[in-house]
């Protein structure tokens, strides 16, 4: 993983002191509320319904065991003993004191972390595949290029005051686990036939109240042009993106208003002036970044799976966990393990200080000290020897991190919702909990097969409901919480193109959500062909059979 040098450390520590002085001026009454707001957002501090929320950047979802231990300390010393894994691979604290935030940022800086540009109308943390560098289906590790973009976008003089927030996601594998096509810029990175690194650029994707799948505007861009082409896109957006209405200010609205073809022409006209300029990447800089992400010193392990087979037979529960939570690794004898945070009764993505410390210890004992955070709000241990899976599973059970529900209905993606967030129309966490409790039978869940269920408490769509196979959106009807259900959304993994869900019909009350989900699953179970996944079944039979069942009794 990337290791800071003196340049990085100096910048981050100067940023902490800069923000500390700004906080002191605010507390002394020298900075107005609305002015300090813009500064604190760019340092990760967002005021929610009950308290400030601090969002810590976990660049492209990768962190070290020591960094995770520091996050645990911060949870204990500055918060209420827990943190939250976000859908953008970051870590959030819900109860920090505004005056103490500079001290938290200083603690982060000591382990080469920060909260820069995790909020506000600027370029946010670049996200990627949580299996980057280890996935068996990967063509190239995207993280060196994510780090190049992190450095380029940090305190950019021209692009820190955009019309709206700006999110970039990168994928380097056959399966797009980063949902790139629902980002402001989605990048696909690969090698051409000669082995040169190239990028495909898609722009204008997004969720929120106007969900859009991104349009591809350039393919095969050579890596040395990565930053100059990004600057061309950003300049066109910064100058022409709408600023009169925050709901129409994302780049997707500009791309749609101009049309993708003329947006591309504008970008190309801008790029003609920037191409081959000083921001063109040098071979040395590209090599330097790539050198930070060379594979660790893997041991020569055998392919022998007989012990694992016997362990799976001895415990059906372990067998289910291996089937759902363990993924193929590039390196023989190793596996990628997802530690699910999705346990009924606990808000999806919430983890305690003790859980963080346990995960950090496992990363050291069963790997090379590296941890990932997935956009599905789980921890990932990237380098676990297959021979250690049994031991890890037993320890993970004791920490309530061994739920075998990855890819299944129980692995709900969920925003903080009305319990915490001042934007939310409705609560989301109790809905997730009710579904998890109602459909708790492990055999039934495994029989249902892969289903993505995503919940957002409002149309800002932090829970990615548009791309859930089953999506649930909290809406406000005359002060009452209602829930709108959509079906058939997909974020673009498992060999399917990304697609947006279709709304089934009128929304339902919170009390009815679980019975509606039950009816949807009944239709699926009756109609599915052997081994057919929910999303494939939906694409085959369409929305009508579901509509009929859900609304039949209401007639």
């Amino acid at each position, binding site marked *: 993983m990337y290791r800071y*040098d*003196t*340049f990085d450390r*100096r*910048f981050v520590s*100067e*940023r902490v*002191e*800069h923000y500390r*002085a*700004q906080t002191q*001026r605010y507390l002394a009454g*020298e*900075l107005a509320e609305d*002015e300090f707001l*813009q*500064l604190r957002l760019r340092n990760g501090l967002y005021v929610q319904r009950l308290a400030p929320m601090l969002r810590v950047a976990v660049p492209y979802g990768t962190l070290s065991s020591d960094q995770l231990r520091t996050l645990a300390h911060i949870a204990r010393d500055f918060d209420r003993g827990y943190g939250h894994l976000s859908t953008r691979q970051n870590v959030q604290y819900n109860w920090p004191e505004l005056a103490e935030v500079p001290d938290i940022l200083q603690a982060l800086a000591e382990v080469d972390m920060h909260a820069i540009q995790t909020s506000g*109308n600027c370029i946010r943390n670049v996200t990627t595949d949580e299996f980057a560098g280890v996935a068996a289906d990967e063509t190239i590790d995207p993280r060196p290029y994510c780090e190049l973009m992190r*450095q*380029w976008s*940090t*305190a*950019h*003089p*021209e*692009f*820190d*005051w*955009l*019309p709206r927030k700006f999110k970039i996601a990168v994928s380097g594998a056959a399966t797009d686990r980063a949902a790139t096509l629902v980002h402001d810029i989605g990048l696909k990175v690969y090698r051409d036939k000669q082995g040169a690194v190239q990028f495909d650029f898609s722009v204008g994707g997004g969720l929120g109240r106007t969900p859009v799948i991104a349009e591809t505007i350039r393919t095969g861009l050579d890596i040395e042009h990565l*930053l100059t082409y990004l600057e061309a896109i950003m*300049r066109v957006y*910064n*100058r022409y993106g709408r*600023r009169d209405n925050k709901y129409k200010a994302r780049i997707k609205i500009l791309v749609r208003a101009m049309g993708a073809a003329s947006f591309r022409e504008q970008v190309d006209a801008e790029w003609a*002036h920037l191409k081959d*300029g*000083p*921001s063109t*990447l*040098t071979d*040395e*800089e590209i090599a*330097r970044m790539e050198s930070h992400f060379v594979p660790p010193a893997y041991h020569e392990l055998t392919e022998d799976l007989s012990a694992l087979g016997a362990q799976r037979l001895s415990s059906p529960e372990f067998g289910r966990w291996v089937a759902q939570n363990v993924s193929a690794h590039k390196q023989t004898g190793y596996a990628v393990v997802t530690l699910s945070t999705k346990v009924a009764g606990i808000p999806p993505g919430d983890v305690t200080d003790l859980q963080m410390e346990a995960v950090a210890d496992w990363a050291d004992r069963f790997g090379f000290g590296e941890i990932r955070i997935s956009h599905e709000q789980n921890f990932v241990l990237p380098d676990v020897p297959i021979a250690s899976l049994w031991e890890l599973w037993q320890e993970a059970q004791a920490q309530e991190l061994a739920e075998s529900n990855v890819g299944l209905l129980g692995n709900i993606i969920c925003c903080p919702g009305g319990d915490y967030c001042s934007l939310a129309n409705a609560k989301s966490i109790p809905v997730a909990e009710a579904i998890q409790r109602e459909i708790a039978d492990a055999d039934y869940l495994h029989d249902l097969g892969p289903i993505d269920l995503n919940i957002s408490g409002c149309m800002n769509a932090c829970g990615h409901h548009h791309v859930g196979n089953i999506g649930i959106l909290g809406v406000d009807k005359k002060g009452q919480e209602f829930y709108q259900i959509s079906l058939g959304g997909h974020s673009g993994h498992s060999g399917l193109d990304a697609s947006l869900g279709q709304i089934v019909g009128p929304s339902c009350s919170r009390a009815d959500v679980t019975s509606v989900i039950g009816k949807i699953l009944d239709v699926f179970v009756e109609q599915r062909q052997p081994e057919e996944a929910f999303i494939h079944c939906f694409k085959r039979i369409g929305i009508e059979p579901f509509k009929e069942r859900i609304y039949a009794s209401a007639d």
Partner: protein
Amino acid sequence: MRLLTEATEWSDETAEPMIEQGSGSMVMQPLSEWVPESGNGLALEVDDEPTSQFCQAPLITINFPVFTDGRGLSLAVLLRTRYDFTGELRAVGDVHQDLLHYMRRCGFDSYVLPEHRQLPAADNRQPFSPYTDYYQASVIQPEPAFRRVPRGA
């Protein structure tokens, strides 16, 4: 770089808005009225489109309608890097003291702070350069760090 206060910005004596510049005064005109050969200053809004004629202006002001509007930053970069404007470039309007460092890196060299905004006390970090160095290229440092700083140490 120069910092002006709002009190010194406009002169009441003439019909044309005046702005203090160097030792003398100068007539400022909006783009719709400005004639390149006039020798007058050019008062731009953030959504004005730059042209190569602008380099004939001795002084250009860019008016920030709100301090969060980043269009003025891109306009400044274009004036400096594409249209080779070498005269004085001044930020006016809703200029914020905590954003001066962005403005400076985008090519501004003078600023009019509204009266209700004061520079932080002298013992605080320099508002024009709170950081020793930056990652990216800018108008005042055309080379990104990776081209001029040994990294990795």
